[in-house]
């Protein structure tokens, strides 16, 4: 009966109580939403590359190799010679191998030389393959496939010519050998979106007239001649490797790391991604902490609401006292009231979260490439709800104790 009366009392103050509940609900939705984005970002990050068993490059750090080979951040210290590449490719454990050649750029985007096998084997988000939004995969020597971000930022369409610059942020351009956009990839949310993909041969072709990183003066081989040259690459920057059986991964990794001809490094993408996440994940944790503060703020708002209601409810408390309620009952009623508000707010917050997810999921996926999974409420959400209710009860003790003192001193007489 007391609970029913407490709820009836809440209904009687529907507007302020509703606002308080709304504030709690929004803060809980924000908190859970940030948590969802955080785990979604982490999962998307971990899903940047999948299906690849090993990444091979010149010996450096594993995070560095991951950064330049997958995220196109930073540069390789050294290349892997074509001979070493072929040695690895010839090993029996190797199912497939895709070379990557980096070093040139187009505007702010990196150019990556590779083979058609890249489109077959590169996978993200647990086994998704690259898809063309428009056009076709590299056909001609001077064809290029561009990522979704590149196309959008630079406004390119299939058939547009582009000129690749030598090096990064360079003013020297490979003007003699213009490329043509043959295909545009669909958005993936991975660094592929920001990459201009050309063939390995094309990388060789544009460097035909170059020696030691500079264009040889006066030399300009006509494109017709280039097409007839042997364009076998001399080196690759890195290689993506798939093995026949997962059991062979570590044996192959050791073999590559101990390769006698050249210092090489083979890394497991998943392990390196985790290592990298432990560095970049701190910002996400900070965001979570901020949204937790928002929940605390909403609960303090509730405390203020209860506080401000105390004076107008003195009469109500006096009636309860006259009927024989102890001051402790008054205290309990206010705590129950807070628990009811916090519980409704928290559960409404979960509802808001799901509505928000349903609306935002496709937008976030296409804009940021972060996949926010919509699952049934997990144990974690349950604990958050419980924590909010618990914190609400604790916070409400402040006005409840005040009410206790008021009802002791007022008794059943209120001078109005």
């Amino acid at each position: 009966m007391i609970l029913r009366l407490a709820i009836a009392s809440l209904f009687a103050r529907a507007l302020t109580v509703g606002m308080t509940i709304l504030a709690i609900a929004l803060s809980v939705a924000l908190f859970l939403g940030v948590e969802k984005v955080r785990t979604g970002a982490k999962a998307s990050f971990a899903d940047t590359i999948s299906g690849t068993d090993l990444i091979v490059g010149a010996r450096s750090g594993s995070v560095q190799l991951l950064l330049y080979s997958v995220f196109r951040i930073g540069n390789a210290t050294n290349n892997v010679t074509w001979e070493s590449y072929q040695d690895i490719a010839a090993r029996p454990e190797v199912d497939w191998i895709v070379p990557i050649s980096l070093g040139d750029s187009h505007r702010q985007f990196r150019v990556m030389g590779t083979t058609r096998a890249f489109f077959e084997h590169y996978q993200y988000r647990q086994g998704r393959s690259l898809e063309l939004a428009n056009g076709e995969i590299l056909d001609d020597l001077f064809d290029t496939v561009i990522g979704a971000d590149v196309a959008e930022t630079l406004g390119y369409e299939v058939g547009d010519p582009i000129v690749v610059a030598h090096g990064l942020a360079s003013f020297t351009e490979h003007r003699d050998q213009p490329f043509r956009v043959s295909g545009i990839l669909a958005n993936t949310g991975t660094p592929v979106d920001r990459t201009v993909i050309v063939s390995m041969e094309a990388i060789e072709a544009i460097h035909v007239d170059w020696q030691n990183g500079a264009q040889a003066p006066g030399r300009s081989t006509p494109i017709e001649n280039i097409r007839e040259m042997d364009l076998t690459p001399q080196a690759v920057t890195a290689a993506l490797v798939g093995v026949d059986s997962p059991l062979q991964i570590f044996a192959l990794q050791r073999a590559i790391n101990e390769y006698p001809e050249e210092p090489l490094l083979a890394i497991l993408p998943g392990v390196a991604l985790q290592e990298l996440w432990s560095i970049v994940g701190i910002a996400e944790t900070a965001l979570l902490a901020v949204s937790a503060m928002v929940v605390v703020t909403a609960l303090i708002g509730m405390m203020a609401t209860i506080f401000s209601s105390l004076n107008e409810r003195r009469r109500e408390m006096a009636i309860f006292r006259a009927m024989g309620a102890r001051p402790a009952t008054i205290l309990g009623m206010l705590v129950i009231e807070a628990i009811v508000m916090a519980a409704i707010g928290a559960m409404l917050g979960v509802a808001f979260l799901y509505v928000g997810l349903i609306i935002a999921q496709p937008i976030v996926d296409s804009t940021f490439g972060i996949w926010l999974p919509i699952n049934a409420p997990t144990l974690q959400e349950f604990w958050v709800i419980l924590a909010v209710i618990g914190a609400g009860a604790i916070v409400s003790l402040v006005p409840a104790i005040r009410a206790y003192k008021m009802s002791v001193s007022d008794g059943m007489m209120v001078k109005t």
Partner: protein
Amino acid sequence: MTGHILNLSNIEYRWPGRAPFTLTVPALTVFKGETVLLLGESGSGKSTLLSLICGTIQPDQGILNVAGKNITHLSSGARDRFRAERIGVIFQQFNLLPFGSVMDNILLPLRFAPERRIRAGDAATEAKSLCAALGLPDDIIHAKANALSVGQQQRVAVARALIGQPPLIIADEPTSALDATSQSAFLDLLFSQTRAHETSLLMVSHDRRLGERFDRVIRMEEIAAVEREA
């Protein structure tokens, strides 16, 4: 039945608030089944006296017997329980929880008084028959308290005070919010009910015209002294 329902002797209480005063009540007795009007102006210590009788405050000295029990040395929790079990309280106005139904309001004291709940038997039926006896329409029982007129609210307050038949009813100016005709009708109903249940009634008022309807009239200044501190 003879004997007293209320017996105060040598009560002394110092109110500790911002304008401290000391209330002394050498002797006050109300007999079982008796209706007593306590006349007093504001500031005469009426409210403090009622608080003492109801046990929300404790006297510094003296003996306070209510319904055969000295409540002076009971703990505050026990006094709250005692009040719930033995005393029906009617205020001047705003007696009811506005957000509760009439039924909720009438049954409220039983929530804090298990013995009184047992005495009430089928509490919902009891509440309905009390409403009928007090001239309230049948369908009012499920109405929200704040939908009622002031007169109806006061009658619901009487029903709430009477439910479970506590031996003593304390009424603090219950008629002051009513007009003269309603006052008279209200008192008729109140008296018929207290007589029917042999309940003692101690009513506080400043309106001496009501006096003729009571068994006894006591003036506050005859039984109590208030000493204000500078």
